[in-house]
């Protein structure tokens, strides 16, 4: 019989102060998990509102100006408050030291600081929403963003602050991975999630400062009028786009790399088979991280960028697909002749494979200059990035959440309702966004409040899809929260996995391990680890 250990990181020490001033990475991770869930809820509400407005070409529930604000906020909140912190802070914080056999991250106080910086940035963003809002789109393009009203300065300052949270988390993770590995845990015995987090951290460290300076320049432009992006003063508005996308393109790999890392954990465990091509997957994470810095101009093909630059960026964009493709093939090969069990985490992993592949392939149309001219700034782009960000990252996040949920809380969620929710999320997502590919190729522009009548049926289907999706998430929230209080005790290793976090109790004690573990086998070496799944429905 499984039992929850009497003293674990959740219930000891007690008291509000012990949480607010904690240095325990697991507690910080749990607080982050709550934070990004609230952000996802807020961003999701804005999404539902967008889709409601788009039911009909004419005004449904809001005016055009409000609509511009709502899609801006949907983007800004989802990107800066949910998905970029996302997997690293909510799952990585909790799980990384456990995966490494360490007691904590390298800089626990910096970790706590990262959390509070995130909270400050989030509060600033919320205040900005209510004190004038922002209607520039989450991309803040000049010259509109330098001239329009609203709380652009406060919102960009909020993002600037959030950037520091991201940088410090990345810094912490890199040093932790380098210096705090347990004895025997060599680089090529690391779980692939760790490789994914590492590559993500490098991008966070290198790219985010450029976002910082870009936003500072934008604020100076608005407040002081330095004229750096203003053509009337000899400035170049496209320069803003270069700076902005130099961060924001690698940022999307900050979003996907941890997700890919999670998939690399889920597929071997739920196929009960060693991962195929460990080194290829590990190296491809770094390949993706490096090439991601070389392709930012593919967001600017119609901005007036020079043809030479466009050609270079298009070519490099094709290159970045290669390491991603390597991963997809290796995951598939892992499943081949494996002993596959379709628990919820695996259902999400399979969803990821299917949906991310669609998202990635549609990116090729956008990376090709000739087709991009027609598809850019249409719903095709919207569908593409939702397929990779939601069909990719969010599916992976949900898979990881369900996978590590018993480790964090010591309790299992209700598998039946989990499967219902997964089905609703999968179906709802595809209904919402597959229709948008069609809308895009037919010419529906993005960020438009109103549209031609011929697009109305597809918009209707997309909106209905958003309701199915929302229902799936509501059900998920219910069964997950219930499980914290009523779930069946899960035991140390319900899934029969071979990585270090499953060798300690669920939930773990504050110091993670009773004794420092010594690693003698690879992370997917189920036989050597002598593990079997103990989870039963």
């Amino acid at each position, binding site marked *: 019989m499984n039992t929850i250990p009497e003293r674990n990181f959740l219930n000891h020490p007690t008291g509000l102060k012990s949480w607010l001033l904690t240095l325990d990475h697991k507690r910080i991770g749990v607080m982050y998990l709550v934070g990004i869930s609230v952000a996802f809820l807020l961003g999701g509400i804005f999404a539902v509102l967008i889709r409601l407005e788009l039911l009909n070409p004419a005004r449904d529930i809001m005016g055009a100006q409000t609509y511009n604000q709502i899609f801006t906020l949907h983007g800004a909140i989802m990107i800066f408050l949910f998905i970029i912190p996302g997997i690293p802070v909510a799952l990585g914080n909790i799980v990384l030291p456990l995966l490494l056999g360490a007691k904590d991250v390298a800089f626990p106080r910096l970790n706590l600081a990262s959390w509070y910086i995130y909270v400050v940035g989030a509060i600033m963003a919320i205040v900005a929403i209510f004190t004038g809002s922002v209607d520039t789109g989450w991309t803040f393009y000049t010259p509109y963003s330098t001239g329009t009203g609203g709380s652009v300065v406060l919102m960009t300052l909020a993002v600037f602050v959030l950037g520091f949270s991201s940088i410090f988390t990345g810094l912490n993770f890199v040093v932790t991975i380098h210096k705090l590995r347990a004895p025997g845990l060599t680089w090529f015995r690391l779980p692939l999630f760790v490789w994914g987090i590492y590559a993500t951290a490098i991008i966070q460290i290198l790219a985010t400062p450029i976002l910082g300076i870009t936003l500072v320049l934008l604020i100076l432009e608005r407040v002081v009028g330095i004229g750096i992006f203003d053509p009337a003063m000899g400035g170049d508005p496209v320069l803003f786009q270069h700076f902005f996308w*130099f961060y924001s393109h690698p940022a999307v790999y900050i979003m996907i790399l941890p997700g890919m890392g999670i998939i690399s954990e889920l597929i071997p465990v739920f196929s009960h088979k060693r991962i195929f091509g460990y080194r290829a997957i590990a190296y491809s994470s770094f390949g993706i991280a490096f090439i991601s*810095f070389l392709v*930012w101009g593919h967001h*600017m093909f119609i901005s*007036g*960028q*020079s*043809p*030479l630059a466009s050609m270079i960026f298009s070519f490099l964009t094709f290159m970045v697909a290669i390491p991603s493709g390597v991963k997809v093939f290796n995951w598939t090969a892992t499943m081949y002749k494996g002993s596959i069990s379709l628990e919820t985490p695996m259902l999400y992993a399979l969803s990821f494979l299917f949906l991310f592949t669609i998202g990635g392939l549609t990116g090729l149309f956008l990376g090709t200059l000739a087709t991009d001219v027609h598809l850019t700034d249409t719903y095709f782009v919207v569908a593409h990035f939702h397929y990779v960000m939601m069909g990719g990252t969010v599916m992976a996040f949900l898979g990881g959440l369900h996978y590590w949920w018993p480790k964090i809380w010591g309790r299992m969620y209700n598998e039946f309702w989990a499967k219902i929710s997964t089905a609703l999320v999968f179906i709802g997502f595809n209904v919402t966004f597959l229709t948008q590919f069609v809308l895009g190729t037919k010419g529906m522009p993005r960020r438009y409040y109103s549209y031609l009548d011929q697009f109305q049926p597809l918009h209707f289907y997309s909106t209905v899809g958003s309701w199915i999706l929302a229902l799936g998430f509501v059900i998920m929230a219910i069964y997950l929260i219930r499980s914290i209080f009523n779930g069946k005790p899960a035991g140390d290793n319900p899934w029969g996995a071979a990585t270090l976090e499953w060798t300690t109790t669920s939930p773990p004690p504050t110091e993670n391990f009773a004794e420092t573990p010594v690693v003698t086998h690879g992370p997917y070496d189920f036989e050597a680890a002598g593990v079997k799944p103990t989870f039963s429905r």
Partner: protein
Amino acid sequence: MNTKSAEHSVHITPLRVYLTVGIALLVFTAVTVKVSTFHLGSWNAIAALAIASIKALLVALFFMHLIYDKKIYMVVVSVSLIMLGILIALTMADILRRGDIYDYQAHPINPEAKIYGKLAADTTGSSHGESHRSSADTGRGAASETSTAFEQDTSMIESVVEPADSAHGRNDSSH
């Protein structure tokens, strides 16, 4: 026990190294100021950057101990400099070559294209369906022999597509 290993792995830089590097930095400062007074055209910038880089290298290697420490720190710095280089290089690839687009000659739109299905059906069959693959460098993108009706119907499109100086109408249909 712990303290022994700490001392063992720490290198203490000799005083003369710090002082020599300091003096070298001051000398290079004087050099760079002097060099800037010569008029070397675009070489001024290169010389200034080269001298600055030597100074930077001295600070990084000796004051910041890179030469004595683990290699990983050098990797860290190098990676950031490479990324900065990429930012500048690819941004300049845009900035410096923005004007290229004005040298591009337009291609006329293929008059047989499906989008004009209705129009092509209206024309009497005198268009020979030569598709134009005129290359950008010759770019004489004039429409080949097409019917007058077609020309009339698409005259607005033609005038938008074609550069102002090319002739409307004939070129030899040998494409």
